[in-house]
């Protein structure tokens, strides 16, 4: 049980850690000051959520590691993040499309986790879900504005959707860990969330004049750690450099 719970908490924490770092890469270079600070806020929300998930994961593991050790001293194959969140930022439109696809899932997942049988998970979810709802409101508005904007912005958003779509399906893939969590009343049935997720994204993409790709082919291997994309290792090299080069540095 505790091995599966540890694995499950790593998935939650690694998603927010990897996406939080990705979003933070926009700090200082976003297309407008207002978007820059909004993305930085979002990144900080995710890192805050990461601290809670990974701190709990470290307690469950009970091997003397803490949240920082889990974040900065694991290599690619030990990460349990979805393939979607490690995809590169690309242009602003791709970043916001990735954000929107994840935010819609995150709100549904966290809303379910508020009722988790694990009190600690329920508390973290209750705190995080309000942030996630705001992220979704923001990414939804931006996806519509850019999709239903100029010919060029529409073209870029459709391209972003087409590129990211095959990575979205992994969010709803159920494996043994998910099944064990669901049976224990700790986590939701991910497969059942897919219908609600489509109900959120479909009308938004329609308003944004975008077409949902027909194929439901989904790349897998991120949340199991079996096959991350080549992007995650490069990201970790940047993210983990300082604590690896200067172990236990304080400031």
């Amino acid at each position, binding site marked *: 049980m505790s091995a599966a719970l540890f694995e499950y908490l790593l998935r939650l924490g690694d998603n927010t850690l990897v996406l939080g770092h990705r979003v933070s890469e926009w700090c200082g270079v976003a297309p*407008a*000051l*207002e978007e820059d*600070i*909004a993305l930085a806020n979002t990144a900080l929300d995710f890192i805050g959520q990461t601290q809670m998930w990974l701190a709990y994961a470290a307690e469950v593991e009970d091997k003397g590691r803490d949240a920082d050790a889990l974040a900065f001293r694991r290599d690619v194959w030990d990460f349990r993040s979805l393939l979607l969140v490690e995809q590169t930022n690309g242009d602003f439109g791709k970043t916001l499309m990735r954000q929107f696809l994840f935010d819609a899932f995150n709100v549904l997942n966290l809303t379910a986790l508020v009722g988790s049988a694990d009190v600690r998970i329920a508390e973290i979810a209750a705190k995080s879900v309000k942030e996630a709802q*705001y992220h979704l409101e*923001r990414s939804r*508005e931006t996806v519509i*504005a850019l999709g239903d904007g100029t010919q060029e912005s529409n073209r870029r958003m459709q391209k972003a959707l087409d590129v990211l779509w095959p990575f979205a399906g992994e969010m709803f893939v159920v494996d043994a860990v998910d099944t064990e969590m669901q049976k224990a009343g700790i986590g939701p049935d991910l497969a059942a969330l897919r219908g609600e997720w489509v109900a959120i994204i479909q009308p938004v993409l329609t308003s944004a004049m975008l077409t949902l790709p027909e194929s439901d082919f989904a790349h897998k291997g991120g949340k199991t750690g079996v096959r991350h994309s080549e992007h995650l290792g490069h990201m970790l090299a940047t993210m983990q450099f300082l604590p690896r080069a200067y172990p236990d540095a304080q400031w």
Partner: protein
Amino acid sequence: MSDLKKEWPLWEVFIRGQHGMSHRHVGSLHASDEEMAILNARDVYTRRNEGVSIWVVEAKHIGASSPDQKGPLYEPSNSKVYRHPTFFDIPDDVGAM
């Protein structure tokens, strides 16, 4: 400033703090429409828990007095001390007025 027409319009932002005070002007920002202006105001001006309510108004809709008019507008009231309610003692527990 390549092409001004491509810039988002300017919005003035008013935030109401948590102490039952009125909305106060806190600054301005750019946004494509009213909804985004409120979201941007939330991100730019309420990061440190400054507010419970946000108003935004497009800057072009604000009428402003001209600095040239400051003589006729303000100077006549300089010499009218009898308009100040200095004859009343305000009890401390009234609080901010």
